[in-house]
């Protein structure tokens, strides 16, 4: 007899029939009927109409029937809360039953009924069950606290269940301990700052004892909980490691990985010269290898974690390369992960084997996999210098296959190989050029163009090749366009005589016909460079490129440390910190690896320190990641340069600021040879000597943006400045997690007529940061740095520096939304980071913003009423005079005051740095904390921002 019989009745009267059966006197019939109901429920049929009839069957001594009714209740109680109350009495009675199984079942089921009214009745029985004499009941009750917390957190706290739960950690029964830990961990996840799992050496000892005796699942909970503990010293750390190590041989892979997490974390505290340390390292490898013989899904998770472990401690698996070889019938997601790890483990010792494997993979069928395999060959070449030659010849073999995507992928990686080993493998260029026509992916096209440009002098028909790309210039992706522009400029600098026409063509395509600002800017920069000083241009464009680093996709050390603390979790699968993606991560705390604190003097010896330092991956400062190398030849042109030479203090900085992009940037690049660029340089056709033919074709439009930008210089008059301008508190603009360890917080201020961006830079990464530079995107009020970012000393780990950056308002203008939004790029030796912030518009209020009374009246009338907007400022307890003087501090000037029927009317004027006037009428009623403000302005879109400033100034 099977359950399928329950599904056979599909007649209309089904519900009625069931109803009759449920109310039958015969126990057996009742049970059959409940089974039918449950069967319908499991396939998603709605049988909620039978609620009262099913609940009636609950009063029974037949355990199976009881369980079935409970299953039904859990499913439908939510939809029928009033009816569910009917069941409460039975639950309460069952919680007193002599049979512990029934007591536990009752409290367990009650917790699953997510109805508020029921939870009220749950508290008393739950309290009793938490202290029940039978451990089975206690362990069930522990989980029930977590359930209740999910439904009503406040109730759980008020009733003191959390404390009872904490007490259960010291329970005599390991299963109860494990469940209490599990419940507390789940609750703690929604209360990140609570000290729910307050671990101390005593409780740790209890957990370690329970660890040996509880179920596999309990072990996972306990191990995950242990991982949150920070031992006091290396001895404690070692003793915990010793007691956790046997878990590495558990059959359950989740237990193994959780144990690996605890060990990886606590190892950090052990002195590296300890014998135990190396023993532990050896013990970690076999369990990790074993995980790879499990089911593919387990392998996948294991591989993602191994990827982290290999980055943190490559020594563990360095001899296990072969287990990562891809098998024919591995699922694709396992293959791709294995490939990643193979490259991480590749070294001179095993490179031959790895290459042979990779070559094999490159002939497989799955396109994604093949691409990745080809890329991997390139990465091997870059990583292991001795193998470069073999890699290149393997890649050439692959190109000969003429399989389209293989060829493209190979060309992309060969470009990287050229970057790493310049002037070594150029003999293959001819082969590459043969395949020009088959390239249809932007990345491959860009790579090929880069190669042609870089080696233009060795390719006879370089001009023809590049010209062929130029035909469809506008249909190319930005990546290709930028590359083509640079390549042709390189070509011109190398073979000036034959390629003038080509370079003019590409410059005009880039500057005149393109609406991509990056492309245009680059075009202008080249154009100006070429026209001013071709020698300098040569130095800039054909400068020696910095080497690319070996490992291009290493995880940033801070992130890696955090992820190591999260081994085995979803975070480790996604390689992202939990805060970045966990739903409702209510401020998840960042976990850190513990710092090593020795218990004895001997462990602090300096040679230990150096050993530790030696094992960490070192980043040579001259190396930039290869991702950036497409732009590498542009060097830092799009960023203000680092101030290593110490530029003059920005006394005249206001004027200089506008041309920072061109002036300052090129200045230091070109060195002493070049003259400082004057404001008229774009305007005059002063083309360089060696650029004879060019002036005639220089488009007029070139003059416009530069001339405009510089001609429009602004004076920010030296009007005396009353003190007390409002400065908002500093807030974090760029969290360290997003910027590879660089944290930036700051605010804006106007001090003595100068707008300043006040920044605090904090280095939370492990390596030293240097070469800071800052640049703004175009913004509503033309804000731009008036000088370079003055960070003269390198910023060491955990160091903080305060910098104040004077700003000018003569930069390029683009309307932003919101109006006061500012997008900022900050660069350091590691990378470029972007963030956006909003500035208080009050910093743009200039000191000479006081209007003449007559002018005010006339202007007020003149501005159409449509432009008037009214706002309310609530809860402000200043009188009109105090308000007036406070506002004056922020350059909001009161022109006149009128009192009508106990209401003060203040008339005020404001002038923005771009010359926009804002007129205001502020009405203050004595005794009424709510002000009314009317703003009139020819540009009504600023009103909202101005109002915000009023509010901020008045309330601070």
């Amino acid at each position, binding site marked *: 007899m*099977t*359950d*399928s019989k329950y*599904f056979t009745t599909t007649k209309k009267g089904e519900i009625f029939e069931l109803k009759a059966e449920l109310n039958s006197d015969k126990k*057996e019939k009742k*049970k059959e009927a409940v*089974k039918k109901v449950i069967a319908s429920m*499991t*396939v*998603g049929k709605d049988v909620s109409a039978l609620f009262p009839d099913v609940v009636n069957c609950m009063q029974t001594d037949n*355990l*199976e029937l009881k*369980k079935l009714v409970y*299953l039904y209740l859990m*499913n439908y109680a939510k939809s029928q809360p009033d009816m569910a109350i009917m069941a409460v009495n039975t639950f309460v009675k069952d919680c007193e039953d002599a*049979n512990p*199984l029934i007591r536990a079942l009752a409290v*367990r089921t009650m917790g699953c009924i*997510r109805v508020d009214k029921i939870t009220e009745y749950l508290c008393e029985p739950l309290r009793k069950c938490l202290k029940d004499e039978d451990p089975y009941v206690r*362990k*069930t009750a522990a*989980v*029930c606290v977590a359930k209740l917390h*999910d439904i009503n957190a406040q109730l759980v706290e008020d009733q003191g269940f959390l404390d009872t739960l904490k007490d259960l950690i010291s329970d005599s029964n*390991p299963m109860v301990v494990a*469940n209490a830990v599990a*419940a507390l961990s*789940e609750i703690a996840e929604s209360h990140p700052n609570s000290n729910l799992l307050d671990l101390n050496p005593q409780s740790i000892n209890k957990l370690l004892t329970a660890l040996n005796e509880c179920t596999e*699942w309990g072990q*996972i909970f306990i191990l995950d909980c242990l991982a949150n503990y920070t031992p006091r010293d290396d001895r404690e750390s070692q003793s915990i490691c010793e007691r956790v190590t*046997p878990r590495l*041989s*558990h*059959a359950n892979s*989740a237990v*193994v*990985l*959780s144990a690996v997490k605890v060990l990886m974390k606590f190892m950090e505290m052990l002195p590296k010269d300890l014998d135990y340390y190396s023993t532990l390292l050896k013990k970690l490898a076999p*369990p990790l*290898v*074993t995980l790879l*013989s499990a089911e*593919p*899904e*387990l392998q*996948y*998770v294991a591989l993602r974690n191994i990827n982290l472990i290999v980055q943190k401690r490559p020594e563990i698996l360095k001899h296990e390369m*072969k287990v990562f*070889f891809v098998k024919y*019938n591995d699922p*694709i997601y396992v293959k791709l992960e294995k490939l990643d790890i193979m490259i991480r483990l590749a070294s001179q010792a095993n490179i031959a084997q790895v290459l042979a494997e990779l070559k094999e993979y490159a*002939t497989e069928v*799955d396109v994604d996999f093949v691409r990745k395999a080809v890329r991997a060959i390139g990465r091997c070449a870059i990583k292991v210098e001795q193998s470069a030659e073999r890699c290149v010849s393997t890649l050439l073999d692959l190109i000969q296959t003429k*399989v389209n995507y293989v060829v493209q992928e190979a060309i992309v990686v060969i470009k990287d190989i050229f970057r790493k080993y310049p002037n070594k493998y150029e003999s293959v260029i001819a082969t590459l050029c043969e395949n020009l026509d088959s390239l249809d992916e932007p990345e491959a096209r860009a790579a090929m163009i880069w190669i042609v440009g870089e080696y233009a002098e060795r390719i006879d028909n370089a001009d023809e090749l590049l010209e062929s790309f130029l035909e469809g210039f506008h249909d190319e992706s930005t990546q290709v366009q930028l590359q083509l522009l640079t390549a042709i400029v390189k070509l011109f600098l190398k073979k000036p005589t034959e390629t003038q026409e080509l370079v003019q063509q590409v410059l005009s395509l880039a500057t005149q016909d393109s609406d991509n600002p990056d492309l245009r800017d680059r075009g202008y920069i080249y154009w100006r460079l070429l026209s001013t000083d071709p020698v300098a241009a040569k130095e800039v464009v054909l400068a020696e490129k910095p080497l690319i680093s070996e490992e291009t996709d290493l995880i940033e050390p801070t992130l890696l440390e955090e992820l190591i603390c999260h081994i*085995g*979790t*979803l975070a480790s*699968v996604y390689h992202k910190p939990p805060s970045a993606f*966990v*739903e409702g991560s209510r401020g998840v705390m960042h976990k850190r690896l513990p710092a090593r604190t020795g218990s004895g003097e001997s462990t602090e010896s300096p040679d230990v320190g150096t050993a530790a330092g030696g094992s960490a991956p070192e980043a040579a400062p001259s190396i930039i990641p290869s991702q950036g190398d497409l732009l590498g030849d542009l060097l830092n042109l799009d960023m203000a340069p680092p101030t290593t030479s110490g530029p003059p203090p920005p006394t005249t900085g206001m004027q200089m600021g506008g041309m920072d992009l061109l002036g300052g940037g090129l200045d230091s690049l070109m060195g002493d040879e070049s003259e400082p660029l004057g404001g008229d340089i774009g305007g005059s056709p002063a083309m360089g000597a060696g650029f004879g033919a060019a002036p005639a074709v220089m488009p007029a439009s070139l003059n416009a943006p530069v001339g405009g930008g510089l001609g429009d210089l602004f004076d920010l008059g030296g009007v005396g400045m009353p003190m007390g301008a409002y400065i908002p508190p500093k807030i974090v603009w760029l969290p360290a997690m997003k910027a590879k360890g660089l944290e930036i917080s700051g605010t804006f201020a106007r001090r003595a007529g100068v707008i300043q961006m006040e920044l605090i830079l904090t280095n939370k990464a492990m390596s030293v940061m240097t070469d800071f530079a800052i640049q703004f995107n175009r913004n509503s009020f033309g804000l731009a740095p008036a000088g370079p970012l003055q960070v003269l000393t390198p910023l060491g780990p955990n160091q903080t520096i305060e910098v104040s950056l004077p700003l000018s308002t003569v930069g390029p203008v683009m309307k932003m939304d919101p109006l006061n939004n500012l997008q900022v790029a900050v660069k350091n030796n590691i990378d470029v980071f972007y963030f956006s912030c909003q500035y208080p518009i009050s910093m743009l209020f200039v000191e000479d913003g006081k209007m003449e009374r007559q002018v005010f009246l006339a202007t007020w009338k003149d501005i159409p009423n449509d432009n008037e907007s009214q706002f309310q400022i609530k809860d402000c307890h200043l009188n009109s005079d105090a308000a007036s003087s406070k506002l004056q501090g922020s350059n909001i000037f009161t022109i006149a005051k009128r009192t009508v029927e106990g209401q003060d009317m203040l008339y005020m004027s404001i002038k923005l740095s771009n010359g926009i006037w804002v007129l205001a009428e502020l009405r203050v009623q004595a005794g009424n904390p709510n002000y009314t403000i009317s703003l009139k302005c020819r540009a009504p879109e600023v009103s909202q921002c101005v109002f915000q400033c009023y509010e901020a100034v008045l309330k601070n």
Partner: protein
Amino acid sequence: MINSLFLINPSGEMFLEKHWKSVVSRSVCDYFLEAKEKALEPEDVPPVIHTPHHYLISIYRDKLFFLSVIQTEVPPLFVIEFLHRVAEMIQDYFGECSETVVKDHMVMVYELLEEMLDNGFPLATESNVLKEMIRPPTILRSVVNTLTGTSNVGDTLLTGQLSTIPWRRAGVRYTNNEAYFDVVEEIDAILDQSGTTVFAEIQGVVEACVKLSGMPDLTLSFMNPRLLDDVSFHPCVRYKLWESERVLSFIPPDGNFTLMTYHVNAQNLVAIPVYVKQSISFFECGSDGRLDVTVGPKQTMGKTVEGVMVTVHLPKTILSINLTATQGSYTYDNGTKLLVWDIGKLNPQKLPNLRGSLSLQAGAPKPEENPSLNIDLKIQQLAISGLKVNRLDMFGEKYKPFKGVKYITKAGKFQVLTITASINKYT
């Protein structure tokens, strides 16, 4: 913890859902079905999928997807292990794990799932414990139940639930006391074209079937335990004793269980039992090719190799094949291009050979891919690593049990790489 479980068949139909916390709408599976559409094979569906509000962790097993929905940070391995446990439980209870079986026993599966998790926390996952609480169906029992009105659900608290040996129930009684151990080893290997081992390892497992009364305490020792450096044990094994004396000491669960798994990857210890001579070649011009495969015994320790089977995925451009086998028979599916040659027992005097011609689709170029041969084989009474059980002792009970050990070696993922050659003229 684990919120919900969906069972999904290969055509994407959800035929069972179970929620341990609040109900999650079925529509969440759409993200999974989307990923499934994208994957070429059902095996290729990524096991962890991120949706805006949930995580979907799935396994593919016995042609079914087990999909769990989670909402908070839960170790994915924990979930995957649990899902495999669910599949094993179904297999254990009903003899097989399939859609039909689950549909036939819907209510019982549902009851079982309820026992396995509470609020998403594992409650009872040991087969012994589950079987005490919900008795597996037998024809006899269902007849008895109908006649007497008794139920399948146990109504006493299990002693095993809370003792320090949760895996064993108390009061076990057998008339015949017996303990059998199967040492099963699978060889995973990749051999290159010339027959050189690229990679080889042995995955071993000791399966036990122990039916002993009372609370027996067993000690199993090996002749050569040093072979095993990478092991994982059933929770019943006392790890300390293994560390110090290299013996397995344990109080066994009742019935079938996996005592330990191990793996040997020291290259010199992995004997390769067969060799394969193969050539697949295509004529430089024309649309024909040749295939020639011979299998012979290599390091077999004097045992006979049985159940030999060779599977090849031929290139897509093959139109038809015409082969003759000197032993066994071959099947070829032109749709999937899968060639399966079932050889059977390997006779060292007369080596089996499969040869003949391949014809390509007209005008198709010489295939680029190099098909690899997957080999299946079996050797009875041999653990290829050389592992041997020394003795089994029992303490704690007075009776004399029947004891037995069986060895078997199989091929796991055993593949031979090929290289397609070009030939100029027929030789």
